[in-house]
């Protein structure tokens, strides 16, 4: 096995290694403090070791240049992440979620194994460089096969609909630093694999592949963000939102694939750059938000935002960091989500004008509209998550009595928050860096006009900062000698000191629940017995229909097949002879 370790050193690998390490450092710092909470019941060394192994195996995946080592590290990544997910094993639900997660990743692993087996069949080699040499000679049938297998294989790990169901189960279960790594980095590793196989090994794919990727990406985005909107568990919301961002990246990749098919390489490079940039940005802000959720959990012991509120006073740093993360994820300039969001939208728009087929145009246009709706919904969801958790008044005792957070956790969050701003403001430089490589990848020589005029965001930020500063000074001057009164909030004359008059998370998204509720299987029940109370439930419809029905089929088959093993010994003897006769007949007939 040792001989397999031989590194790949092209830019794509290095880029993802960069992302992994970039996220790992703050998360590691954060872990130092965060682990205190677990020390009582669980072993800290166990977690630290697993995290180390997890990160190492992720790096292993992205640097391996050979199928076997790729798969080995891939599976190692799954195994270690599984054990991290069930780290708090004393809760039964965690075990269930973990098993579900591991089975899903195993599906992904098996599909990848088969896919690489096909690549081996077509190219005769397990070596990436050998496969690459062959990449021009794939027939379109071969490309279809590899594409479908890669889509399912990597998709199951990325959490594209309908293979996303593990995300909202595994992420809330895992300790928050682990979910930060899983959502921020592990999903990206899957994306790395997809990009390597589709864009580097296959080169150009048939048009239909791009269309499939685009549609799946869009459906994933809208489906998961609408589900995210209706969640009250912070981490579940974030998990769905991760699926949404993956959907966006996927849609951009789909656009890129379609454009490569039309030989519009300049634009394809733009879309690919958008996807890669969003990988980085999402890694930063999503891990930031997960770390924040972890801090909230650490301090209050609950993930349910309807029990929280008013945390901005007791957890100031966390509140500010979450605010930055929220801005980033809802694409507010100059935070980093914005930079990639406009690149993705731009690639949609420019693709519409360049592609000649009217059906493709309509497709891209409708997908673009949905993506825009998605970004609106993302704003809604994260505003809810931040606003309900941190602002207002504490809703329960849990939110009032808050445990102090270790400094290392704050440092970890702070670093990521800084990164979210820096990568946002200086996104033009990052874009030009990435685009250099994507241009190389797609064999574009010379300057790509798609990437001009990208520096406006810096000017914008400068203007914004200057004006804010001026206004701030003006305000300071203006408020001198003015009376400033601090009072309770006015509540129409009633005593306002009632936290339950505030909007809850469920109430906040009520308008959306009313319109899009069916997508998340939203149910509201009002009970009039004694006290009037409202119970609201959501569930994943894909899980309800697809997963449960396939489980039913498996259960049915199990019941039938199990019967073979029971029964009388006489019957078992009969089996031997039946199989003997069948085998004889078959052999005499066909051999």
């Amino acid at each position, binding site marked *: 096995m040792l001989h397999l370790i031989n590194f790949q050193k092209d830019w794509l690998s290095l880029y993802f290694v960069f992302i992994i390490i970039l996220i790992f450092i703050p998360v590691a710092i954060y872990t130092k403090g965060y682990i205190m909470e677990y020390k009582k019941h669980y072993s800290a060394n166990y977690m630290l070791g697993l995290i180390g192994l997890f990160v190492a195996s992720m790096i292993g995946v992205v640097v391996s240049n050979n199928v076997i080592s790729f798969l080995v590290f891939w599976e190692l990544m799954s195994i270690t992440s599984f054990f991290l997910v069930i780290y708090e094993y004393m809760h039964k639900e965690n075990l269930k979620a973990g098993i579900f997660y591991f089975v899903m990743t195993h599906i992904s692993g098996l599909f990848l194994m088969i896919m690489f087996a096909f690549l081996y069949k077509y190219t005769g080699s397990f070596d990436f460089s050998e496969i690459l040499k062959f990449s021009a000679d794939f027939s379109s049938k071969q490309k279809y096969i590899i594409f479908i297998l890669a889509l399912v294989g990597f998709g199951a790990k990325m959490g594209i609909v309908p293979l996303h169901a593990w995300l909202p189960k595994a992420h809330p279960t895992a300790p928050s630093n682990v979910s930060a790594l899983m959502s921020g980095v592990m999903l990206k590793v899957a994306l790395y694999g997809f990009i390597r196989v589709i864009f580097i090994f296959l080169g150009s794919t048939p048009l239909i592949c791009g269309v499939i990727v685009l549609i799946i990406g869009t459906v994933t985005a809208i489906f998961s963000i609408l589900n995210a909107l209706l969640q009250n568990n912070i981490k579940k919301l974030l998990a769905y939102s991760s699926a949404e961002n993956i959907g966006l990246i996927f849609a951009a990749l789909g656009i890129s694939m379609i454009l490569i098919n039309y030989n519009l390489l300049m634009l394809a490079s733009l879309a690919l750059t958008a996807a890669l940039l969003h990988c980085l940005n999402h890694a930063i802000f999503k891990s930031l938000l997960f770390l924040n959720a972890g801090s909230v959990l650490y301090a209050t012991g609950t993930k349910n935002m309807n029990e929280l509120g008013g945390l901005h006073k007791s957890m100031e740093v966390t509140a500010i960091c979450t605010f930055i993360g929220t801005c980033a994820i809802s694409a507010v300039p100059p935070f980093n989500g914005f930079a990639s969001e406009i690149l993705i939208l731009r690639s949609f728009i420019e693709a519409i004008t360049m592609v000649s087929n009217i059906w493709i145009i309509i497709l891209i246009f409708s997908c673009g509209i949905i993506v825009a709706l998605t970004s609106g919904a993302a704003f809604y969801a994260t505003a809810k998550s931040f606003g309900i958790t941190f602002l207002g008044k504490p809703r329960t005792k849990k939110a009032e009595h808050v445990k102090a957070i270790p400094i290392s956790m704050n440092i970890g969050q702070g670093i990521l928050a800084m990164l979210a701003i820096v990568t946002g403001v200086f996104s033009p430089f990052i874009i030009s860096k990435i685009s250099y490589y994507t241009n190389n990848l797609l064999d574009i020589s010379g300057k790509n006009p798609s990437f001009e005029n990208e520096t406006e965001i810096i000017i914008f930020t400068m203007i914004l900062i200057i004006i804010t500063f001026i206004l701030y000074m003006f305000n300071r001057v203006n408020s001198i000698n003015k009376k400033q009164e601090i009072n309770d909030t006015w509540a129409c004359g009633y005593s306002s000191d009632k936290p339950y008059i505030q909007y809850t998370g469920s109430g906040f998204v009520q308008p959306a629940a009313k319109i899009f509720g069916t997508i998340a299987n939203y149910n509201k029940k009002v009970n009039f017995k004694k006290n009037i109370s409202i119970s609201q439930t959501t569930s994943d419809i894909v899980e309800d229909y697809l997963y449960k029905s396939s489980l039913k089929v498996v259960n049915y088959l199990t019941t039938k097949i*199990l019967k073979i093993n*029971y029964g*009388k*010994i*006489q*019957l078992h*003897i*009969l089996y031997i*002879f039946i199989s003997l006769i069948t085998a004889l007949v078959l052999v005499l007939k066909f051999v």
Partner: protein
Amino acid sequence: MIEALLTIILISSIFMSGVRRIKLITAGFIFQSAAIGLIVLKLGYETGKVDYYILGILTIVTKVIIIPLIINKSVKKLKINREMELIVNGFVSYIITGIGIMIAFGLLNKSQDNFLKTGIALFIIGVLLMVARKKAITQMIGFLIFENGIVLFETSLSKMSLVIEAGIVFEGLMLALIMGIMIFHINRTFDSINTDFFENLKE
């Protein structure tokens, strides 16, 4: 002479496939094994090979004397004499055996080797006894009939060295012994040798 012995084998085996008394089955088994032993000895006489003599003597010693002794002993100890419940009743068993032997002979009509055909008939009856009877002891006898078929097969087909054949026969004997001991244990723990009680192992 050989034809007569083969007739004995066939008649005894068809007889065994339907009777209920274990003693009768044992008796049939003794006749059958004796006939097989004699056939092997006869072959030895014809060809002049020592192998056949030894195989024949071994067969007669084990299957005519030792194994029936074991069976009778355990039957006496266990106080069972009758296969009370049949999965397939006697009448149908006869018919199945008849049809089975017919089909086997029909399939092998090109072969001139009567040993082979008889061997296959013995397989069928052995399997029938194992599949269609509930008592462990009948199953054991069924297996022994099956083994007899193998001996017939051997004599018709092979030309192995003595050691090997002795090995095969010896292991057959050991198997019968082990089965006997096991039946004894089963009776002691289950208070019956009916395989209906074998339903503990599930899931």
